[in-house]
Structure formats: structure tokens, C-alpha cells
């Protein structure tokens, strides 16, 4: 933009109108136009100006056919000044149009970036061979993971629909049997998720462990590839209307979850330790690595079973809650759980968009 204004100023000061130069500048710009109304306006303005600039160029270079009626010098000078003013006005108009086009393009770019972020967060992108980088993706397509991401996107949609149905059912005071069907449906939906994850773990356990298939806020709470059951119980407890006996049982359940989680976490620590030892075994610093890798590879196999056991724990916790609660309470609990995750996902999206606001 700076170069444009500089040239504009230069032309004015010199009293010269350099139509060809300016046209070429706008010409370059014209080539990059995207199909919307302001673009056609630009083209319109340009062709109009192109026509007029040719006229004025004739005028600048010397007396032309249009102006041979005027003989007096001051008149010529006046005319030239008027033409310059006209050219300057036209140039300002074109600059304004150019700036408007830039703004539109910028908005469009923001929209495209937003769309990309949204789509990315829904998980519909190529994956495989992840590093810690959030923004990169490797050229390798892992079909198991690609399939998982598509399935998971569908799972979230189905989840939202189920929550909607649960909410409606609870408000409309449905019969216990019908509510039970909805509750069973929601429980089966979670079982389906765990089955999906088990398959994905075989395809790429590191992908599951990274939580890249979840939104960023959900990822913050990640524990062995998913949510931590005891934390969820803590979140849900105030939102459930429990009898004393039930409260006792839920507290026992939360404690049991905590103990099981601790045991799994300590197992993971042990796995990290043994893996580190396997990788670092032998002599470091001499560029030899082949003998140790098979040992390390064996260690990594265990990671799959950890993810499976963590998911199993989640599944068992949900089922135990289902046993403790009445059908209505279970419906309320599942709804609260679903809404909690919906809010986390919404928070992730809000946060991602907040980053993009211009300051």
C-alpha cells in the first residue's frame, strides 16, 4: 500500500499523469480478483478510467484533436490543471476501491481460516505420524485414524441429537419405560465410542493418547486418551438429586475410581520408565541404535493395553452409575454429562476465534 501512495503523491507533485504505470498496478490487482460484487465494480471503474486515461494522455503529450479549439496558453494550463485534478480524483476513487477489495479479501481469509479451524476441530483432516505440533500434519494417511475421525465426527453429532431428545423427554414427563430406552441408547452410544477407540488404538495408539481428535479444552483434561472418571463424578454430583444411600454409593464409586486411576497412572509411570531405559540402553553418543529398538517396541505395545484399560474403567464407571441411579436420575446424569462436554467443545471454539480478533 505504501508504494501505491508514494507513486500517487509523486504523480501529483510532478503534475504528470502516468496512466500506463498506474494501469499496470491496478492491472496486477485485477488479476487476483475473487468473484464478488466489489470485484466487478473494480473492473468497471478500471475500464472507465482506462478509457479516460487514454484521453488525458493525449492531452498531456501535446495538443490533441479534442483541444485544438483553445488557443490561449493560460487556458491550456488551466485545462491541464483541471485534468490533473480529474486524474487525481479518479486515482483516489481507484485507491478507495482497491482498499475495499483488500478488506473484503481479508475478511474472506479470516472466514476461510475459521472454517479450517472448525473443520479441523471436528477432526476431518488427514492424520498420521503426529508430532506435538498442533498445526502440522504429516503426509502419511493412516486409514484407521481417518476412519476414526469421520466416525467420531458423526458420533458427536449423534450425541448432540441424543442430548436434545433426553432434554425433551425429561421436560415432557415421559413414562419410565420410554425414558429407559433413551438412557440405554445413550449408554450404548458411549460403549460404541469405546469400541471405536479400541480399534483406533490398534491403528495408532499415540494418536489416541494425544487427544487430537478432541477439542482443545477437552484435551486439557486428558488422562490416558480420555476423560478421568472420578473428575466427571465430581462435576456431576451437585447436579444430581440423590437419596442418602445413593450419595454414599456414588462417593464410594468416586473413591474406587480414584484408586483405580492412581493404579493405572502408576503403571503408566512404570511404562515410561522402562521405555526410557530401553531406549537409553547400551552406549549413547556413538550413533548405534538398532539393538535396543526391538525392546522399546515391545514396551510400546503395552501402551495399547493401557488405553484399553482406561476406557474399560470409564465404561465400568458409567455402568455402575446406571446401577446406582433410578432411570430418571440416570437420564438427568447423562444429560448433564453430555451438556458438560458440549460446553467444553463450545469453549474451545470460542477460544480459537478469540485468538483471531485484530487488535
Amino acid at each position: 500500500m505504501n508504494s501505491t501512495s508514494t507513486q500517487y503523491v509523486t504523480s501529483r507533485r510532478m503534475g504528470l499523469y502516468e496512466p500506463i504505470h498506474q494501469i499496470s498496478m491496478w492491472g496486477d490487482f485485477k488479476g487476483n480478483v475473487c468473484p464478488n460484487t466489489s470485484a466487478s465494480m473494480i473492473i468497471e471503474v478500471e475500464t472507465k478510467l482506462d478509457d479516460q486515461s487514454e484521453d488525458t494522455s493525449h492531452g498531456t503529450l501535446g495538443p490533441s484533436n479534442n483541444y485544438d479549439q483553445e488557443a490561449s496558453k493560460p487556458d491550456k494550463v488551466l485545462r491541464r490543471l483541471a485534468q490533473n485534478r480529474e486524474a487525481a480524483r479518479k486515482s483516489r476513487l481507484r485507491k478507495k476501491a482497491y482498499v475495499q477489495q483488500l478488506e473484503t479479501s481479508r475478511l474472506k481469509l479470516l472466514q476461510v481460516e475459521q472454517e479450517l479451524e472448525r473443520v479441523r476441530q471436528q477432526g476431518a483432516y488427514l492424520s498420521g505420524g503426529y508430532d506435538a505440533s498442533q498445526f502440522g500434519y504429516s503426509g502419511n494417511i493412516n486409514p484407521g485414524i481417518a476412519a476414526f475421525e469421520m466416525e467420531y465426527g458423526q458420533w458427536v453429532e449423534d450425541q448432540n441429537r441424543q442430548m436434545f431428545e433426553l432434554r425433551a423427554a425429561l421436560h415432557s414427563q415421559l413414562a419410565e419405560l420410554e425414558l429407559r430406552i433413551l438412557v440405554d441408547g445413550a449408554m450404548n452410544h458411549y460403549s460404541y465410542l469405546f469400541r471405536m477407540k479400541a480399534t483406533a488404538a490398534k491403528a495408532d495408539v499415540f494418536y489416541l493418547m494425544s487427544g487430537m481428535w478432541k477439542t482443545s479444552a477437552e484435551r486439557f483434561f486428558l488422562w490416558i486418551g480420555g476423560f478421568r472418571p472420578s473428575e466427571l463424578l465430581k462435576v456431576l454430583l451437585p447436579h444430581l438429586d440423590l437419596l442418602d444411600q445413593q450419595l454414599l454409593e456414588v462417593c464410594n464409586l468416586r473413591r474406587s475410581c480414584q484408586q483405580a486411576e492412581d493404579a493405572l497412572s502408576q503403571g503408566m509411570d512404570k511404562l515410561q520408565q522402562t521405555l526410557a531405559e530401553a531406549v537409553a540402553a547400551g552406549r549413547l553418543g556413538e550413533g548405534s541404535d538398532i539393538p535396543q529398538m526391538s525392546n522399546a517396541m515391545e514396551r510400546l505395545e503395552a501402551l495399547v493395553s493401557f488405553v484399553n484399560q482406561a476406557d474399560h474403567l470409564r465404561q465400568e464407571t458409567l455402568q455402575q452409575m446406571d446401577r446406582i441411579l433410578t432411570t430418571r436420575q440416570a437420564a438427568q446424569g447423562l444429560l448433564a454429562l453430555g451438556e458438560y462436554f458440549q460446553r467444553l467443545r463450545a469453549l474451545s471454539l470460542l477460544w480459537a476465534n478469540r485468538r483471531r480478533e485484530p487488535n
Partner: protein
Amino acid sequence: MPYFLCSSNLKQSPAALYPTRKEDMQLVTQAPGIQVDGCDQPGATKTETAYERIRRLAAGNAVVVFTAAGCCMCHVAKQLLFGLGVGPTFVELDREAAGPEILAALYGLTGDARHQQQPVPAVFVGGKFLGGVETLMACHINGTLVPLLKDAGALWL
């Protein structure tokens, strides 16, 4: 949906979770004999099948866990039981003379259980086979583990 009894007065074993103990023990005793040395002394005449050895070892303490070195899931089972205040006996198969045979026998015990592909850790409570780490955690979550441990005398209070 049937409600599962999880009261602390539970006396019988939670049969719904895994095969009944009697069937297991029949499997154990009727299995073709894999002869192992019964004693450490070389040239001992007393031999027993791997299954008999398992049964003997399992009966030796209220809670017995068969483990393998470097098995991190065994560490999970260990930590869970320690956390509950249980002091299990650990049989590390790498240190057992008949380790491989016992491992093969354990495969037979755990092979039928859902998702159970790892023979270790193999948890025995009160001399009876409970399961692997998955069953152990499931029992803990549904509240049947602690009563089972108390019945076997592994826990007080």
C-alpha cells in the same frame, strides 16, 4: 435392567462376572498334565502338573498374583491392591523354575474371559481365580472386590 447386588453383606462370589470357581477348578484338575519339578532339589521324585502348582501357590495366601518382569499391567494390579491395604503374594514367573509352563497354564485360565489376552497379571483371591487387571478393576468399581478380600481374610474392617 437388573440391579447388581453390591451391598457389603455379599457372601457368595460374584458369579455374573466370570466363570464359577468350581468350573475353573475342574478345568484346572482335568487338564492334561504338564509335568514340572515340584521341589527345588535336583532329582526330586515328586512332580506336579503346572495346574497343581498354580493351585498350590494360589492356596498359599489370601491374595496371590502371578506376574512377569517388566509387565506394567502387573504393576497396576500391585498398586491397586497395595492401595487397598492388601499384602498379596507375588509369584514372578521369570524367577520360577516352571515359569513357562505356568504361563501356558494361565493362558488356559484367562483365555475365555472377555478382552483378556494377557495371562499376567493373574489374580487369585482365597485360592480361587479372579481374573486379570480388567476383572480386578471391574470388581473394584462395582463394589464386589472389597467384600471378596474381606471374606478371604486379606482385609480387616
